[in-house]
């Protein structure tokens, strides 16, 4: 069948819901939280209209139970999905470990929302990044198209390496903003994403399994190693699946870091998620103004694209890491990871951390320009002014 995309104008949340439908998810268990709610509402609506079949929808009483129910479902062999945000994701934390430890390829959309207090419903990446050590793969979407594509790819990758995957989109900037999304006809999604082949199921009664039993010091270590190995293997799988996606549907995701006009760049802006849309636009403007700059969008934060980062770092003099998140007592989380990844290499670009947009603070092209001016100055001088710059702070 020839690929003719179906164009729909949808919000990021609806893009996620359509992807869930097209992925033929079998169990959705979820609990409402702003701004995730419209994902699960849309899925319920699909069900109510008879647009989805073979899906069990479990309206649980908390996010903790949402993840627990997905875990039960996934262990039984089903393709399972949930979605949440901020406080909901934090409440799930224990179960995120459980999903990865039991090697269950659950896919979740997290709508990045700032953690309270003070209450905030706006964009901030700290919620999802705080889950980085749970053994979940993490994909950060720049726009609604990437939310849709990300969910489909996440299932395929997760089910190949038997680890759960999180697709992350920003609160309101994507979740509630409408944009054109090219959707894939069901038959072609089916070809790309065949039914799940589980690592184990709870339905073989002649060869019963006991999953998650006590693992003594003699065994536990190896269980951890296997997760580490699966994460490492995921890099290759991400590359292959991303490439296949490109060949089939025209959007190539083979690179874990998407490079934008970096070829001859003196320095680059690095970041994740929707703010990179702004950055790319700014790069075009700055190029016209004579700056030799580029953008490096980190698509996959887990596994961390060390190798691709190294290749980039070799060729530039500076990296401005834009973090819409913060790890208290240290620095921006992406900055921390990127610096750490390069320490044992011979690539030593000047790296500076800009904390931007926390809790939904606007981040615009002119902000990128200011950062570019600052980066240019410090590169000329050959040393940092400050390492971590709370860029928007009202001083």
């Amino acid at each position, binding site marked *: 069948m020839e690929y003719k995309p179906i164009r729909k104008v949808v919000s990021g949340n609806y893009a996620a819901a359509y992807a869930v439908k097209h992925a033929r998810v079998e169990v959705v*268990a979820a609990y409402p939280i702003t701004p995730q709610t419209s994902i699960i509402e849309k899925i319920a609506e699909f069900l109510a209209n008879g647009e989805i079949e073979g899906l069990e929808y479990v309206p649980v009483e908390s996010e*903790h139970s949402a993840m627990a129910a997905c875990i039960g479902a996934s262990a039984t062999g089903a393709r399972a999905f949930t979605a949440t945000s901020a406080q909901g994701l934090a409440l799930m934390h224990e179960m995120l470990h459980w999903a990865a430890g039991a090697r269950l390829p659950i896919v979740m959309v997290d709508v990045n929302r700032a953690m309270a207090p003070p209450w905030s419903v706006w964009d901030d990446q700290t919620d999802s990044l705080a889950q980085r050590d749970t053994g979940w793969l993490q994909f950060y979407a720049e726009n609604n198209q990437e939310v849709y594509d990300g969910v489909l790819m996440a299932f395929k990758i997760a089910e190949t390496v038997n680890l759960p995957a999180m697709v992350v989109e920003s609160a309101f900037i994507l979740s509630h903003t409408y944009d054109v999304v090219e959707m894939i006809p069901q038959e072609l999604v089916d070809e790309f994403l065949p039914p799940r082949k589980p690592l184990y199921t709870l339905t073989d009664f002649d060869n019963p399994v006991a999953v998650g039993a006590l693992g003594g010091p003699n065994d536990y270590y190896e269980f951890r190693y296997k997760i580490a190995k699966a994460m490492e293997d995921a890099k290759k799988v991400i590359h292959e699946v991303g490439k296949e996606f490109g060949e089939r549907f025209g959007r190539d995701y083979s690179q874990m870091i998407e490079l934008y006009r970096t070829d001859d760049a003196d320095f680059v802006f690095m970041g994740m998620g929707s703010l990179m849309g702004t950055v790319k636009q700014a790069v075009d403007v700055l190029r016209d103004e004579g700056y030799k700059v580029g953008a490096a969008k980190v698509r996959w934060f887990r596994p961390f694209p060390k190798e691709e980062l190294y290749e980039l770092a070799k060729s530039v003099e500076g990296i401005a890491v834009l973090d819409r998140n913060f790890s208290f007592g240290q620095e921006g989380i992406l900055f921390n990871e990127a610096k750490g990844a390069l320490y044992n290499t011979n690539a030593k670009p000047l790296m500076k951390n800009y904390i931007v947009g926390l809790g939904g603070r606007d981040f615009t092209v002119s902000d990128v320009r200011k950062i570019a001016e600052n980066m240019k100055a410090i590169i000329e001088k050959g040393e940092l002014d400050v390492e971590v710059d709370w860029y928007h702070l009202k001083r």
Partner: protein
Amino acid sequence: MEIPENVKKRLSIPAEEHFYAGHTACQGCGASLGLRYVLKAYGKKTIFAIPACCSTIIAGPWPYSALNANLFHTAFETTGAVIGGIEAALKAKGYKVKGEDGIMVVGWAGDGGTADIGLQALSGFLERGHDAVYIMYDNEAYMNTGIQRSGSTPYGAWTTNTPGGKKHFLEKRHKKKVIDIVIAHEIPYAATASVAYPEDFIRKLKKAQKIPGPSFIQLFAPCPTGWRSPTDKSIELARLAVQTAYFPLFEYENGKYKINMPSTKKEPKPIEEFLKYQGRFKYMTKEDIEILQQWVLHEWEKLKKLAEVFG
């Protein structure tokens, strides 16, 4: 071991064993007996979800399992949610769930994992109407972490965080009536059971299997380790709990209450009968015992009235 047919015929509970020797329960453990009966009733076409509790250990460490059935070990507070998810997946995949020939999904959790931290997930499970059975084995404390009080610990009991002693700091609240909380959800079937009455327990398990929707059984399961009782007295204590009306056996089915006491005519034995052999009650004063006795009789009268009015 093969059981001769003529013996098999005389047995009132299934002869088949799906709970294997080599499990790691303490001697005289009521919970392990309970697991054995559940497997006798449901056979191997069963999926268990077991949260953090003594049964995590009883079932055996990786890569072993004492259960000839599928088992998913889960987080402490998630039993209700996990069995809901398992049931949903089975349905999505087109399996028959519950009923004589269906797959049995069983949540098997302690009183701590049910009355306290897991109460929310239990409530959600009951309310959403999943076709699964939730069994709370009630040993009246958190045994796995070393005998701390739970909401199901009775008045006057010693535990490691309600220790006795000079200041007399014992459990001061009465046992949380989890079954009443369950019944308030108006589910089709709920019952109490005791390891001292296996026929009654298995009959209830079978009933829970037949009735669609969520079922709940609260199983009284003595713990010699936590109760500071002799290991050979577990069954006797479980029986005395029933005979003193401390833990009455009854069923709730579609709005109707039915008491299933071995002898309904007899007045309950004095509570001291149940307290004896148990080191956990040794700090109780005469007044304490009286307070517990009054509570037991009051609750028993309440139950009898319920059975009378809604029988």
